[in-house]
């Protein structure tokens, strides 16, 4: 029995869509305006002023920051998956002592605020000479995002029937081989999910990036954007152009692959 949706439903729907997209839409519009259009609050630019984009991309160091973000985020997501898959398999399929306690610890790690450990971490990274390198970000990102990967994939592995694996084990297949040959191919959607989520989280992360990088050697996009005004003396056209460039890939991925992200963010319903 399907209820009729009334007019209030559609009004609510439109308001919520507007709330969600207008700020970003306004950012895109602003990035295409000339300075005087911005200060006189013209809603639409007269001509699409792409100069903002040209300047951000070719006359500031922004491309280097994008490159840093690409390196850090890709390496982080791959390593999170490499480290996370075996752990998730153990939690989903094997019995061992302290399993529940360790699993709760993993869950707790996904929400532990980074600021509380940041100063010793800074000293540690400085002592091993890692400050202002990609490594200084990749290392903490792996520690912070792998628990999330473990959490999501454990839920995912439990939904895969284990019958095939039992047969394979009886045939003498070793566990690492089993993960590689049977579990992984069946888990492609789960892997895509955690891949997108860890990539997005690393791409957007700010606090560690702010403190552990100091120059364009390793400075990622969020840090560059947060410091943008200082370098370019409050140029909102360029600022918003940089914001759009920095977010478009992530926004497109999450809009087109939304079902993966939603399944990951709500996996087992009781998780982030």
């Amino acid at each position, binding site marked *: 029995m399907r209820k009729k949706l009334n007019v209030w439903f559609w009004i609510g729907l439109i308001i919520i869509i507007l709330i969600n997209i207008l700020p970003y839409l*306004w950012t895109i519009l602003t990035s295409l305006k000339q300075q005087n259009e911005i200060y006189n609050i013209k809603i639409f630019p007269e001509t699409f002023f792409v100069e903002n984009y040209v300047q951000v991309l070719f006359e500031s160091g922004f491309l280097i920051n994008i490159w840093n973000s690409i390196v850090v985020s890709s390496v982080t997501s791959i390593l999170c998956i490499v480290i996370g898959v075996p752990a998730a398999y153990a939690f989903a399929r*094997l019995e061992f002592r302290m399993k529940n306690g360790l699993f709760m610890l993993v869950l707790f790690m996904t*929400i532990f605020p980074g600021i*509380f450990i940041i100063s010793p971490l800074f*000293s540690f990274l400085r002592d091993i000479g890692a400050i202002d390198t990609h490594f200084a970000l990749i290392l903490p990102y792996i520690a912070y995002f*792998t628990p999330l990967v*473990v959490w999501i994939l454990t839920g995912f592995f439990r939904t895969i029937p284990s019958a095939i694996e039992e047969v394979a084990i009886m045939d003498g297949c070793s566990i690492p081989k089993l993960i590689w040959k049977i579990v992984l191919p069946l888990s492609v959607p789960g892997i895509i999910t955690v891949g997108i989520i860890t990539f997005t989280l690393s791409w957007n992360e*700010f606090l560690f990036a702010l403190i552990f990088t100091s120059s364009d050697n390793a400075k990622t996009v969020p840090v560059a954007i947060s410091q943008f005004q200082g370098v370019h003396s409050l140029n909102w056209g360029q600022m918003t152009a940089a914001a759009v460039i920095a977010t478009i890939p*992530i926004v497109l991925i999450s809009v087109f692959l939304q079902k993966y992200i939603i399944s990951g963010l709500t996996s087992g319903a009781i998780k982030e």
Partner: protein
Amino acid sequence: MKYRFLPYILLLPVFTMIVVIVFIPLITTIIYSFQSYQLTNPDAQATFIGLENYTNLLQDGRFISSLITSLIYILGSVIGMLILGLLTAQIANQAFKGRSLFRASILLPWAVAPVVAAQSWKFMFETDFGVINYVLEGIGLIERNIPWLVSSDHAMLSVIITNVWKTTPLLTLIIVSGLQTVSKELYESSDIDGAGPLKKYYYITLPLIRPFIAMGLIFTTLQTINVIDIIYVMTGGGPGESTEIFTLYNYKVFFQYLDFGLGGAMAVIGVVMVGILIFFYTRSMNKQYN
């Protein structure tokens, strides 16, 4: 078949990372908190000073006021997120044409980096050429431009709005997954009783999705405290210290004043408070079953 060591071998890499990057630094933070340890003096040695950092903190008006500021920021955000999140989830849970487009629009604020969200909203909140004042004036709600980010009366509201915009999607998605567990039959039986939609929502839906709301609030509240990006970019904690939440102040103590001892004590207090917060939420979540 028994695997004695295999599970631990499979877990070893991830727990090594957790121990090296989180546990050891956490213990070190606790040690710092009992030391006088300032980076401003390069030759300074860390010396044990007992509870002095803690007693200093309790006398630090700025620390106390940062706690109150955090509380206002969290409360405001939670109220905003709950209203927006429950409403959005209710709509997203209906079957209608274009639902996946609607869900995509929900994900947009989640995907945008907090720093980018902060810059976008900062621009919209600009006093003289911000679009928010422009619209409010256009529809006649205000006569003079509101100095959103530069007056301590309005700055808090501005950062709360931005945080709600950025963080609600996560809560929404968790509530939607809760709504999907509510069986349709419950509604149909109450249709017969002639209960109105609001009554049904209050008496049937809300109690059933309560654990999901609690879980969603744990994640979004911790994110609210943890992600200092928004306030850092929009106001830097100002004007004055009107938006300086506790974690932002902690960041400043560590990396602007370079006082790792005092900062360590703040962090330890922070960990305890986060623990209390989680306890509080989980208890309210479990009440449902008892």
